[in-house]
């Protein structure tokens, strides 16, 4: 083998090593299975649901779990299991969209802070600190007052509050690499900065960013469900987990099933992504242990 | 049962500590490591015993087993450590605690990390006097007295500083002051100069020698630096792969090493090389796998003088000269005869 075949990305070996270690990590494996189940059910939701999640009176009102209705029915006779599965689709959509947006923006802002002039770096750091000092929900409510409640608002709030964490990691990594000798040498040889960033910074930060993002999913889900629960996120009748819980809470003295059914997926998602994220972190990046 | 801390007067020629057949195992995920095997050694009263060898030879493990601070996965697999008629190898946690900081104390390798970083020097020096009935003022005065003993300038003001505000050399002086303050019978020094630079090393060694003579305690000095051992110690034990391979008075062993390993160690000591050379000599080969210690001589694989007997028969410590023993078949009087 010549030097030409050596890729700067140690990806394949690290990935297979990671999968092998994951198989030996009990909680990591549980997390992986849970996450796979949830993502799978979100993708295939329209084919899984036994009833139309929005259809009323498909069964008796506020029925306990039965063979026909696995998680019972709500106050207007909708099938809770179908609503929970459909809600998972919403939750995963919010998580995927907002975390992608936050990752991209964080990557860009982190690079700007790391490479730009000192004053710009300081300004960005201040903005990051300011954004981090908002309680997510309180900030979300403020945004709702301005642009009104919607699925988009939820995504916007989650994206904005997640950006600082990602941007800071990218910034630190960029700063460390900016003055590294091999970078200076390559620059002297005329390699352009954007290309250098693409080759050296990106592979270095992508792993930690993705691990952090996977550990952030529970937070995103909780924010979405929380805002929707308060009636400030996804609007009924769209079956978000928060909406299911809100409907259920109003009738908590009549039937516990909507609350139980709506909360189980939230707990499972949190467990799954936390387990998986922690396992990935331990496998790929033990240094994150302290930062996280 | 009498507490081991209660000293019983002993004749001067009886050793302070005698180690008989001590073996220590470490449980690791890859198997049991037999880190110390059948150690026989005496720490003489009021003298300095040096313990030398490469890293990984077990000298630190031996030092830590003398103060009962082996790591959690270590186990004393056999043998005894006798001190005043008590067997330290069988001591419970409470009895150990009574002994530490009273009769035995220790100076550690790295002064940068040995002191509590979040407490002042004075507080730490007063804490270790917690058994004394004296007042705070008395304890404070005693701390200052010992900081002066280790020649720390402006000792009184040092009580109120934190460790990170002192240099490495100063911190090691503080550690020595603390160790001596408890007036131990046995002071264990685990490579106390390794983390310091060369000029400081000599200062600390000289200081240790002076203070040892002044206080008359026994010192177990662990080092891989032959020069400091020659400077400081009365007796020396050379360790290799978890065994004592040679022991005796420093003068004898340094003048006429009898074990091939000791000889090789001296050949590799930069301070002893008289002929100009471009390459520092090294001993070829590596330490044997201590999960399965070799059947014959542990040094056989790296020894230039090995012969058939070394492969099959584990050598005992043969008396090589008056007061000097070596674990080598070449020293066996029977081998001479044949």
């Amino acid at each position, binding site marked *: 083998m010549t030097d030409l075949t050596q890729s700067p990305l140690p990806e394949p070996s690290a990935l297979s090593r990671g999968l092998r270690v994951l198989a030996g990590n009990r909680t990591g494996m549980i997390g992986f299975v849970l996450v796979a189940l949830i993502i799978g059910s979100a993708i295939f939701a329209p084919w899984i649901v036994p009833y139309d999640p929005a259809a009323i009176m498909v069964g008796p009102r506020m029925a306990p779990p039965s063979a026909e209705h696995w998680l019972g029915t709500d106050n207007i006779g909708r099938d809770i299991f179908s609503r929970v599965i459909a809600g998972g689709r919403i939750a995963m959509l919010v998580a995927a969209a907002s975390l992608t947006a936050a990752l991209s923006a964080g990557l860009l802002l982190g690079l700007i802070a790391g490479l730009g002039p000192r004053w710009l770096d300081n300004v960005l750091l201040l*903005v990051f*600190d*300011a*954004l*981090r*000092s*908002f*309680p*997510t*929900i*309180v*900030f979300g*409510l*403020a945004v*709702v*007052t*301005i*642009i009104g409640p919607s699925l988009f608002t939820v995504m916007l709030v989650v994206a904005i509050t997640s950006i600082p964490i990602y941007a800071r990691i990218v910034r630190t990594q960029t700063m460390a690499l900016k003055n590294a000798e091999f970078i200076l040498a390559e620059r002297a040889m005329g390699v352009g900065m954007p290309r250098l960033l693409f080759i050296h910074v990106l592979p270095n930060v992508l792993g930690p960013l993705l691990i952090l993002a996977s550990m952030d999913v*529970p937070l995103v889900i909780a924010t979405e*469900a*929380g805002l929707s*629960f*308060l009636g400030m996120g996804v609007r009924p009748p769209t079956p978000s987990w928060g909406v299911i*819980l809100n409907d*259920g*809470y109003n009738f*908590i003295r009549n039937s*516990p099933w909507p*609350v139980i059914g709506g*909360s189980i997926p939230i*707990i499972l998602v*949190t*467990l799954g992504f*936390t387990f998986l994220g922690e396992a990935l972190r331990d496998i790929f990046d033990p240094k994150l242990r302290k930062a996280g | 049962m009498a507490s081991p801390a209660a000293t019983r007067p002993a004749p001067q020629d009886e050793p302070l500590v005698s180690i008989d057949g001590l073996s220590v195992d470490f449980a690791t995920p890859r198997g049991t490591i037999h880190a110390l095997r059948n150690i026989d050694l005496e720490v003489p009263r009021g003298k300095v015993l040096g313990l030398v060898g490469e890293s990984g030879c077990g000298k630190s493990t031996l030092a830590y087993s003398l*103060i009962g*601070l082996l790591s959690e996965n270590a186990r004393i697999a056999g043998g005894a450590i006798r001190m005043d008629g008590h067997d330290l190898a069988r001591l419970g946690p409470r009895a*150990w*605690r*009574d*002994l*530490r*900081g009273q009769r035995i*104390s*220790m100076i*550690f390798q790295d002064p940068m*990390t*040995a*002191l*509590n*970083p*979040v*407490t002042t020097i004075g507080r730490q020096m007063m*804490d*270790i006097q*917690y058994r004394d009935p004296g007042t705070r003022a008395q304890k404070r005065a005693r701390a200052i007295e010992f900081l002066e003993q280790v020649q720390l300038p402006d000792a009184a003001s040092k009580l109120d500083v*934190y460790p*990170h505000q002192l240099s490495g050399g100063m911190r090691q002086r503080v*550690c020595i002051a*603390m160790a001596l303050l*408890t007036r131990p019978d046995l002071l264990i020094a685990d490579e106390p100069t390794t983390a310091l630079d060369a000029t400081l090393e000599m200062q600390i060694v000289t200081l240790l020698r002076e203070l040892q003579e002044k206080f008359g305690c026994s010192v177990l000095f662990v080092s891989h630096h032959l020069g400091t051992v020659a400077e400081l110690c009365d007796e020396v034990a050379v360790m290799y792969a978890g065994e004592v391979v040679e022991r005796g008075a420093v003068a004898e062993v340094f003048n006429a090493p009898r074990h091939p390993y000791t000889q090789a160690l001296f050949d590799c000591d930069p301070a002893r090389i008289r002929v100009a050379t471009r390459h520092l000599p090294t001993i070829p080969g590596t330490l044997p796998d201590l999960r399965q210690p070799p059947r014959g001589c542990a040094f056989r694989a790296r020894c230039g003088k090995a012969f058939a007997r070394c492969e099959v028969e584990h050598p005992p410590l043969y008396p090589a000269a008056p007061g000097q023993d070596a674990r080598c078949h070449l020293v066996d009087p029977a081998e001479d005869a044949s």
Partner: protein
Amino acid sequence: MLLYAFQRFGLSVVIVMVAVSILTLMLHVVPGDPAVMILGPRATPELIEQTRVAMGLDRPLPVQIVTFFGNILRGDLGQDVFTGRSVSRIVFEQLPYTLILISVSILWAATLGIALGCYSALRRNTWLDTLTGVISVGTISIPAFVMALYSVLVFAVWLRWLPAIGAGEGFWDGIRHLILPSFAIGISWVGYVARIVRASMLEVMGQPHVRMARAYGLPDELITRSHILKIAVQPAVTLIGTGVAHLFSAAVFVEAIFARPGIGALIVQAVNERNYPIVLGAVLVTTGIIVLATLVSDLVIAWLDPRQREEL
């Protein structure tokens, strides 16, 4: 130490100012007339003009921001657009309820969490250690508002042990009404704190200075307290300090679910009425408290650890 505190305080003030600017700017970045936005569906032409003048929206943006900061420094957060009452009065009326709720929650949770974390590190692999591990993972994966729903379900609806609605009248009734909400907010913090304390205890216990303390035969209790815990508790302090933001978020839900008064309930109500001055005022005050909490946690760590004092 004093200089350090002052520098950090200055930085905190700047951060709060930037945070408020972000919220104010957001109002102007969104297309449309801010006054209409603030008034929402109730806007009549007269009311819009009135609001515009009252809030200074007719002046240029930089002037608005400067006046706004000037007003904040004088403790003036503006007026409620509907009733004309002072926003700072309204906010500070509600603040004590929330502060009591989150302080009680974090206090019991941190105390129990530190004790459990400490115990599990010192006695590894005992049943209580295993139990702590299981509880930690279990409670961390349940968001505060779900926990609040379950505490209502179990303790108020099924068992009927405790009240679920309101803040109660008088001292003892108030305490009875605090139990469930503070349980719902605090329980996951027991897990966070126990986990982080256990991990950092184990790390510190392996450090050479602890071995040295053992070499002097110091009593275990002294070693644990001044050689291990004093260092190992620091990550927990930081966690709690930066976690105050999450406490406020949790308080929003808990106040909604238990129908308690407080700043969270105030914000939710203001959002429903689209009463932006109140939302802005409440966000400003909570952000200020959060930044202050971070500052306090940094100072506590500087007080515990002399090495941190010189970092700045």
